[in-house]
């Protein structure tokens, strides 16, 4: 039995996951208004499967209409509107301001997490089903796992951008996209 539940929360913040990953540009979502990226974790590098691919595989049979709608919205962001802040649900990342969720419609069930860099760049992560009865993502193990994983990726990407190892050029990122090892 855990007599000190608060300590677990502190432990999570002070001992982040160590993840190795590569940021890749999504061919189907490169447009004049924004470029979309996703993340290939080291463990998925052989299959070359992004977090976004995994989200689609996990949910496309269960929620086909919502998945279609999400892809359609991403296409609009890429080719028409850019990743405007009001089109995305903000503050999904605790201390990280960049973490957003794509969907904020009370009638929908899926949450897709992403890291937003201005209106031109969105890095898609994973997500999952958000039961209506829960208020915070922490109440659902799957959402919590996907969100906290993306928080860790966001921290390392942020750090590389601050060090100028990654830069925004026009509506794309340029630089070093490999995050292997603990150099950041």
């Amino acid at each position, binding site marked *: 039995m855990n007599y000190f539940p608060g300590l677990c929360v502190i432990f999570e913040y002070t001992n982040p996951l160590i993840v190795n990953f590569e940021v890749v540009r999504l*061919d189907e979502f490169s447009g004049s208004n924004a470029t979309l990226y996703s993340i290939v974790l080291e463990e998925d590098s052989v299959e070359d499967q992004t977090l976004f691919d995994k989200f*689609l595989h996990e949910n496309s049979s269960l929620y086909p209409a919502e998945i279609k709608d999400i892809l359609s919205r991403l296409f609009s962001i890429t080719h028409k509107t850019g990743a405007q802040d009001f089109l995305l649900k903000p503050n999904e990342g605790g201390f990280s301001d960049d973490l957003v969720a794509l969907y904020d419609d009370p009638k929908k069930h899926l949450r897709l997490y992403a890291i937003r860099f201005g209106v031109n760049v969105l890095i898609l992560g994973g997500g999952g089903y958000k039961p209506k009865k829960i208020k915070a993502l922490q109440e659902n193990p799957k959402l919590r796992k996907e969100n906290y994983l993306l928080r860790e990726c966001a921290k390392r990407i942020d750090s590389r951008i601050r060090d100028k190892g990654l830069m925004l050029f026009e509506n794309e990122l340029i630089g070093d*996209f490999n995050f292997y090892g603990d150099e950041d």
Partner: protein
Amino acid sequence: MQKARRHSSAIVKEIMATITPEEQNRTDNKMLIAVKIAEALKSKQISQKDFASKMGKVPSEINKWLSGTNNFTLDILSDIERALDIKLLNTQIDASSNSSMTLQNGRRSS
């Protein structure tokens, strides 16, 4: 400085192929209307709260309008146009289609 490696996804292609041009056009329009409203609020320096009050709505309703997911009625779009003094609907009758409706021998023909 290099660009990121390009990743092409079979599942994305497969699902994108099921989205009809009509469906994509609907999504585009919902999101573009949200952008137009947001730009008007910004340029006129009107807060979402004040806009909600002007429209007789709760702030969460305005939030939904700006999320690009709302299916607006014609009445609401007309009210937003008046409230923000912007054009969201193109109701101008095209001159060329107008000229094809001519009166012939006192009768209107098209």
